């Protein structure tokens, strides 16, 4: 059954379409919400991790003698203490739990200490003697494939080719460019942390901040050499994720220490360790060539894209597929030649981050569209609209876009917004450089830029992507209440609110309790790919439908709306569990990259207005406006929150955020040197939300979280280019790129 949004506007208070308060909101503002780093257990000890100082080195020897002598130390463990398989990974099992004879990146885990105080653990770590033979690191993604092989199969993690249409096309005008994207960090505020508690049955209970409980469970069990049912995970409070918690960090380590010492073990990374402790966004080098007719219609796109996966594969394969399949952007192009490569190097491992491959491609193809407009003397928005895909357009993979693709409309919406006035107040706070008092307006030039982007929603390429939901209704104290249980991780985005809203709408029950997320129920899938409202939302909706069927039977022919549900249920408990899948996708053809690989596409457009102090290279983003299609805004307030937060991360990549590496070593692992936008950096945003329902998706929803992260970066850079006339082919744009010094 598919419904139009109008039919769905819920009559139940706090149902879908409303913006009820988050069930965890009060606890969070009171400081009483238990994040993973807040956990405490009687008798617990602290775990910490000794990491490699070298990007690439052979381990000659490890001597634990002195560390074990430190009073208060309970255990010092190495790879020899890993009870099961020492290798893990999301796509390839290539990463050691603890390094064996070689370290492949700076920060790789080598040994663990369990001690009575974090400071004791630090002292003991300093007494572990590791002798390294330092090796020449592989750090250039463009030549890595032919460099020293870092893994048995060589340094190419994945190559995705796309071949569509004429492979030797010609065109009236050609623009080409080489673009670079720096390594961005998720920089979630809640550090990696968890508490592992050894259980009486010989297993372990792990309380953890993660994005995907079941995949963690499988990997931890394999490393511990235990059956799945001995490794039980419960989600604790998660302080943001953005992709950075999809891989393991301290999960196995804490469990090893707990099982070894038979004590509860808490591990909390500090900020510096957090920079080493999770994967980042792939840095990229992208070579593009666009051919077009004189009136600006795209004839072909050719691209060679390199993504630096760093030392271990993580989700590089899927990131490569995204950058390739979404590589021309939301445009109709008949002739496409793309080769996208993911490489191993000795740089920090890279994997999932909001936007997942689409961000890197987005910066390059939107830069190209601006270049094309400039070459043709056309308006950059007009060129985009002339090529904009619509419903029915064909992707470079041959897949037909079979629901709304309002690309032109989104661009028009942001273009038609009133422009902010040029500041005349001389308020320093509105100037580039702010109260540092670097300019009073002299040398400041305004620029305006536009961009639009495309992102796939849910898991692709034939992955069996599903979620499990259990919904139960019963009468408590005379009132009918519902309970929903999944293993889908709430990481801050508000899934718990959405689940409550869906149950209210589907069952008409006001009081809905969300049970803690854990592995006692089936897989909820990953909180990534903008998929949870779609997939876990779909599962909760389906479980509600199963409950409703039971209620209808109980009602014996009467309409449910006409009976008192509490009376009807009486002493019964109605409890239904459903596994729900979105429509299946297909793998890509390995030679041509053709196939219906994606489930759904999401689109957003931005307009950025910037003031640039061209003498000092300082940028003030004055306004950042967005238009996005979300299918159906189940919770309008949360939708805006996603668009604002996603846009902020895109702005960060445009002008400030980069993990800088030299020879594989991270130069700035702190919030002092890795800057993320503050409230002074974020401008006001005006946002238009379209609700063009996708008939294939539950309630017509379209994933919201990622599209705004893709278009905000190129929009900001386009605005800086407009202000400065510079080519600016690399993000983040640094002051010296603007001053050219």
């Amino acid at each position: 059954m598919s419904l139009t949004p109008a039919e769905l506007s819920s009559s139940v208070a706090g149902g879908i379409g409303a913006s009820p308060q988050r069930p965890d909101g009060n606890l969070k503002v009171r400081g009483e919400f238990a994040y993973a780093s807040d956990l405490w257990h009687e008798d617990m000890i602290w775990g910490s991790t000794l990491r490699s100082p070298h990007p690439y080195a052979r381990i000659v020897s490890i001597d634990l003698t002195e560390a074990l002598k430190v009073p208060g130390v309970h255990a010092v463990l190495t790879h020899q203490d890993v009870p099961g398989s020492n290798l893990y990974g999301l796509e390839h099992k290539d990463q050691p739990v603890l390094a064996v004879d070689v370290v492949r990146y700076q920060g790789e885990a080598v040994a663990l200490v369990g001690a009575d105080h974090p400071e004791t653990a630090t002292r003991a770590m300093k007494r572990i003697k590791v002798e390294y033979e330092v090796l020449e690191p592989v750090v250039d993604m463009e030549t890595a494939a032919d460099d020293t092989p870092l893994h048995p199969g060589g340094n190419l993690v994945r190559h995705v080719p796309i071949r569509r249409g004429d492979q030797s096309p010609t065109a009236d005008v050609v623009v080409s460019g080489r673009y670079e994207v720096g390594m961005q960090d998720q920089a979630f505020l809640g550090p990696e942390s968890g508490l592992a508690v050894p259980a009486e049955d010989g297993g372990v209970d792990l309380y953890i901040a993660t994005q995907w409980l079941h995949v963690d469970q499988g990997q931890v069990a394999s490393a511990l050499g235990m059956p799945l049912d001995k490794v039980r995970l419960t989600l604790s409070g998660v302080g943001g994720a953005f992709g950075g918690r999809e891989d393991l960090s301290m999960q196995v380590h804490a469990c090893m220490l707990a099982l070894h010492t038979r004590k509860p073990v808490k591990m909390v990374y500090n900020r510096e360790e957090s920079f080493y402790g999770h994967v980042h966004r792939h840095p990229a080098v992208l070579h593009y060539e666009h051919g077009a007719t004189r009136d600006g219609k795209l004839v072909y796109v050719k691209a060679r894209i390199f993504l630096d996966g760093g030392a271990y594969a993580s989700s590089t394969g899927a990131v490569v597929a995204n950058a390739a399949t979404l590589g021309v952007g939301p445009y109709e192009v008949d002739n496409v030649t793309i080769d996208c490569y993911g490489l191993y190097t000795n740089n920090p491992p890279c994997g999932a981050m909001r936007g997942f491959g689409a961000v890197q491609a987005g910066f390059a193809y939107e830069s190209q569209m601006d270049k094309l407009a400039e070459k043709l003397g056309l308006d950059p928005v007009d060129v985009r609209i002339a090529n904009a895909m619509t419903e029915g357009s064909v992707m470079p993979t041959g897949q037909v876009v079979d629901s709304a693709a309002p690309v032109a409309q989104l661009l028009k919406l942001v273009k038609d917004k009133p422009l902010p006035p040029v500041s005349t107040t001389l308020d320093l706070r509105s100037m580039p450089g702010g109260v540092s008092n670097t300019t009073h307006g002299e040398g400041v030039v305004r620029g305006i830029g536009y961009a639009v982007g495309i992102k796939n929603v849910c898991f692709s390429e034939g992955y069996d992507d599903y979620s499990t939901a259990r919904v139960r209704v019963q009468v408590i104290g005379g009132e009918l209440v519902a309970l929903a249980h999944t293993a889908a991780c709430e990481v801050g985005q508000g899934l718990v609110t959405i689940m409550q809203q869906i149950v209210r709408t589907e069952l008409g029950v006001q009081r809905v309790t969300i049970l803690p997320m854990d592995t006692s129920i089936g897989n909820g899938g990953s909180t990534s790919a903008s998929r949870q409202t779609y997939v876990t939302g779909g599962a909760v909706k389906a479980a509600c439908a199963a409950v409703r069927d039971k209620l209808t039977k109980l009602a014996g022919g009467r309409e449910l709306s006409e009976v008192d549900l509490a009376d009807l249920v009486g002493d019964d408990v109605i409890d239904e569990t459903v596994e729900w899948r979105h429509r299946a996708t297909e793998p890509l053809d390995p030679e041509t990259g053709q196939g219906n690989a994606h489930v759904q596409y999401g689109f957003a457009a931005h307009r950025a207005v910037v003031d640039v102090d061209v003498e000092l290279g300082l940028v003030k983003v004055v306004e950042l406006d967005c238009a996005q299609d979300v299918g159906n805004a189940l919770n309008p307030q949360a939708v805006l929150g996603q668009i604002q937060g996603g846009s902020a991360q895109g702005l960060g990549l445009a002008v400030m955020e980069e993990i800088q590496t030299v020879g594989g070593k991270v130069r700035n692992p702190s919030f002092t040197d890795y800057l993320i936008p503050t409230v002074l950096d974020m401008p006001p945003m005006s946002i238009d939300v379209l609700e063009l329902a996708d008939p294939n998706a539950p309630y017509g929803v379209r994933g919201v979280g990622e599209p705004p992260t893709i278009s905000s970066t190129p929009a900001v850079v386009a605005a800086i280019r407009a202000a400065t006339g510079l080519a600016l082919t690399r993000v983040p744009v640094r002051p010296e790129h603007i001053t050219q010094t």
Partner: protein
Amino acid sequence: MRVNVTVNGEQRQADDVWEGESLLFVLRERLGLPGSKNACEQGECGSCTVYLDDVPVCACLVAAGQVQDREVRTVEGLADGDRLDPVQEAFVEAGAVQCGFCTPGLVVAAHDLLERVPQPSDPEIREALAGNLCRCTGYEKILDAVRLAAARR
């Protein structure tokens, strides 16, 4: 060492405090008050903001020994029993809370701002909150929350 300090109006004592410990560690790990957060532990994010004798400070930068015989008020001490402080209420209502890891620090910083400047302008709000990082919200709804709390005063 032993530290005596008034926290949220109560006389508290922490024993066996190691000299290098911060006020943040003592609050979180020794006094059972993990509300103040530990996002950076080096004075860059504001998630650990507490009042020390009525002045907001980063608890991660204050050595435990420095708070001897002084008064600390944390995010846990803002609500009046079940009744949220108006700033807390506004944060929930405005949608200023996503993951919430920045929230305790922001709530204390916003609370302090409104004590000093009951009707702040937007630039004043931005300036007052500039030391508090949030990675989730893009700050728009945090600004909404502070405006809402100010309007209700």
